[in-house]
């Protein structure tokens, strides 16, 4: 009798998610965390430079304006938008609001989130514009 040769499903450890569209979108919003972490690090660095003085702050600003940083920032912006959209999409599943006999329609909850996002973003942009 020959040795036992069980069927082993071949699955790449590093690219398994490329096999299915749903896995790809999952990976896309998981990867957004890399850019969130990078941005938090950049912000903390910016706070230290802000505390240090005008020259240190100017150095931080010129780093922001470096072409390579601009490109990474644009990619990060796309990932932040992906994170926001996927997070809002999941809200009705995580937060079910009951009203009498029925649950509030998920689309209404998501719509409310987008309205709040728009209002908040506009507020920040106006604040930055009048400063």
């Amino acid at each position: 009798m020959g040795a036992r040769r069980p069927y082993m499903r071949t699955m790449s450890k590093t690219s398994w998610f490329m096999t299915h569209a749903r896995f790809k979108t999952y990976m896309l919003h998981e990867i957004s965390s890399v850019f969130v972490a990078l941005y938090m690090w950049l912000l903390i660095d910016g706070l230290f430079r802000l505390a240090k003085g005008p020259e240190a702050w100017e150095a931080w600003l010129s780093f922001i304006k470096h072409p390579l940083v601009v490109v990474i920032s644009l990619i990060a912006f796309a990932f932040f938008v992906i994170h926001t959209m996927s997070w809002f999409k999941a809200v009705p599943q995580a937060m079910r609001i009951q009203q009498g006999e029925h649950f509030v329609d998920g689309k209404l909850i998501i719509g409310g989130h987008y309205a709040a996002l728009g209002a908040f973003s506009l507020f920040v942009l106006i604040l930055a514009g009048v400063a």
Partner: protein
Amino acid sequence: MARSAKAVPWFLFAAGGTITAFVLPVMLFVTNLAPPVGLFSEAMSWETMYGFVGNWLVKLVLLGIIGFGLWHAAHRLRVCAHDFGIRADTVVAYIVYGVAGLATLATIWALLMI
């Protein structure tokens, strides 16, 4: 009811996910995308920023954004490590939560100096 030790990281993850979803797109636009094209140069000047961040309420909000953002990213990076085949979850957890904790302390330190 079963008690789970996952409640704390999960709460931080969920709070961080919600805060980052609302705040980060417009915040990144103001800090990173506007300056290269010369937009909001007055708001991004040292004088304006120093005065703005000097407000204790702004400090508290910034600590909330950065702190929760860090914990959110840490939790997702832990899951990412698992998804890319790294099975030493305990080690990964100590590293990502440890770095997030230290970075949160660094944020408090930086804010106290302003």
